[in-house]
């Protein structure tokens, strides 16, 4: 299990297998692999029946980021070796999983896969599992079986098949396989909902969560504002439908009143969700106020001491005049307009922007700070987002000042804790 054997062990085994001396086996292996690598080094592709195909592939030059300094760097183009196992080899290795076949998913199945950027999603519905209509579930086989039943008695059934494998993941898959079998046979009823085996595959997760009511019918919206669904929804649902029906009829009779009501409800919902979103990001209403009405003298929040700008602040062309700060400036400093807006593209990073504008990558926190009313998570900013880059004086940014740097790093640490 997950052990490596080296050439000497390989030699031993080979000599036993082919009834020859160790010397011969070693000679064969040495020649075999040296010939193999010699051929490959010449840039030739090599196909060996039973093993697979070796090819050297050209990898184009690409830009990357130096992990330590955050500076972009170029990785020159080069060749790399690719290996594709032969069909017979592939099947032999994959034998334990050979029962699985690719499955076409129906279009209306929504799976809970991690999505790219959704920082601007402002509906509180994220909490609810986005589970499709339950009728489609059986099609999702093999992995997401309906009953997460993993009782050990069943596990023994096919132990023989999956004899050699005892790794955790395989164990897990074994149980899913059983679930599949079980679903087919329907021999054992889904008695108890035993907890699922440790590491489940992402996709299979939504299947076990209590099924959400399938697409709340529209009539219900005035009655049932988004609430978390309960497990035995099915029974309640019918009741709900009835009451909703009657209410709906009533509403239909008075169109003006009902539209008014609907508008009010929608407004209320919007405010709620906005407030909820803000609260989640740790932004108080006061911050919002100061954000939208910047002319108001904000007293508490952003009165960080301002530090004089150094002359040699790199890249800071727009805010050129380094001023000596006087107490009178303090009021203005917090409302200084952003020096620039940067559109986030693929591969843009706050740290890179900070490096560009302030001369040190650690100041990215202030760019985030400036935009935090609009981004929820500094690690996930959607592509195409327009970031406002704050004036360096606003947050007392000074790449040459230890204290300023230290402050930014502390802030970064706090943010890191918050979002990880």
């Amino acid at each position, binding site marked *: 299990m997950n052990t490596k054997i080296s050439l000497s062990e390989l030699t031993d085994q080979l000599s036993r297998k082919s009834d*020859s001396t160790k010397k011969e086996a070693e000679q064969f292996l040495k020649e075999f692999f040296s010939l193999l690598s010699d051929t490959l080094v010449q840039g*030739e*592709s090599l196909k060996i029946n039973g093993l697979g195909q070796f090819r050297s592939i050209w990898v184009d030059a690409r830009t990357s980021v130096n992990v330590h300094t955050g500076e972009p760097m170029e990785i020159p183009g080069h060749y790399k*070796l690719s290996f594709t196992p032969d069909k017979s080899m592939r099947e*032999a*290795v994959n034998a334990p999983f050979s029962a699985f076949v690719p499955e076409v*998913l129906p279009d209306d199945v929504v799976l809970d896969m991690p999505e790219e950027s959704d920082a601007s999603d402002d509906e509180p519905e994220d909490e609810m599992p986005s589970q499709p209509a339950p009728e489609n579930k059986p099609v999702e086989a093999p992995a997401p079986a309906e009953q997460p039943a993993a009782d050990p008695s069943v596990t023994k059934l096919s132990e023989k098949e999956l004899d050699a494998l005892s790794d955790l993941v*395989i164990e897990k898959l074994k149980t899913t396989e059983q679930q599949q079998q079980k679903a087919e046979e329907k021999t054992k009823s889904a008695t108890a909902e035993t907890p699922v085996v440790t590491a489940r595959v992402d996709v299979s997760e939504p299947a076990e969560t209590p099924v959400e009511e399938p697409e709340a019918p529209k009539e219900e919206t005035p009655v049932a504002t988004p609430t978390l669904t309960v497990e035995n929804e099915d029974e309640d649902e019918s009741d709900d439908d009835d009451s909703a029906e009657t209410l709906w009829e009533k509403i239909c009779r008075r169109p003006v009143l009902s539209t008014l009501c609907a508008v009010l409800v929608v407004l209320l919902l919007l405010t709620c969700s906005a407030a909820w979103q803000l609260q989640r990001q740790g932004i108080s209403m006061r911050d919002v106020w100061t954000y939208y009405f910047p002319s108001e003298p904000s007293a508490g929040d952003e009165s960080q001491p301002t530090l004089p700008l150094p002359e040699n602040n790199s890249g800071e062309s727009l805010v050129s005049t380094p001023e000596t700060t006087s107490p009178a400036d303090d009021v203005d400093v917090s409302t200084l307009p952003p020096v620039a807006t940067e559109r986030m593209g693929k591969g843009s990073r706050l740290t890179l922007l900070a490096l560009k504008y302030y001369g040190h990558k650690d100041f990215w926190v202030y760019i985030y700070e400036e935009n935090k009313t609009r981004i929820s998570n500094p690690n996930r900013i959607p592509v195409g987002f327009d970031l406002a880059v704050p004036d360096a004086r606003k947050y007392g940014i000074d790449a040459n000042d230890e204290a300023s740097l230290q402050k930014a790093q502390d802030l970064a640490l706090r943010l890191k804790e918050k979002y990880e």
Partner: protein
Amino acid sequence: MEHKQFFSILQERLGKDKKSVDAFYSGLLQIIKERSVSMDSVSIQGFGVFEPRKKLERISVNPATGKRMLIPPRIILTFKPGAVLKNRIKENPVR
């Protein structure tokens, strides 16, 4: 280079007939297979490591039809070239 050519060169180098070389080769294949099935890897000094890897199931879209498929999990034999081989290949002149 193809299988046949490779093995004829190998026979020359070893000074052995086809039969014995084939016997060795099938033995080697068998060992690699056995090891892979038990999730063990075979490492060859100066060449690289043959290692079975588990791949999670995933959803992929058929570009032709636009149908989404659930690709089942699988184990696949991977080969990771060793540092020596990798660097030698890297330094190949650009074709």
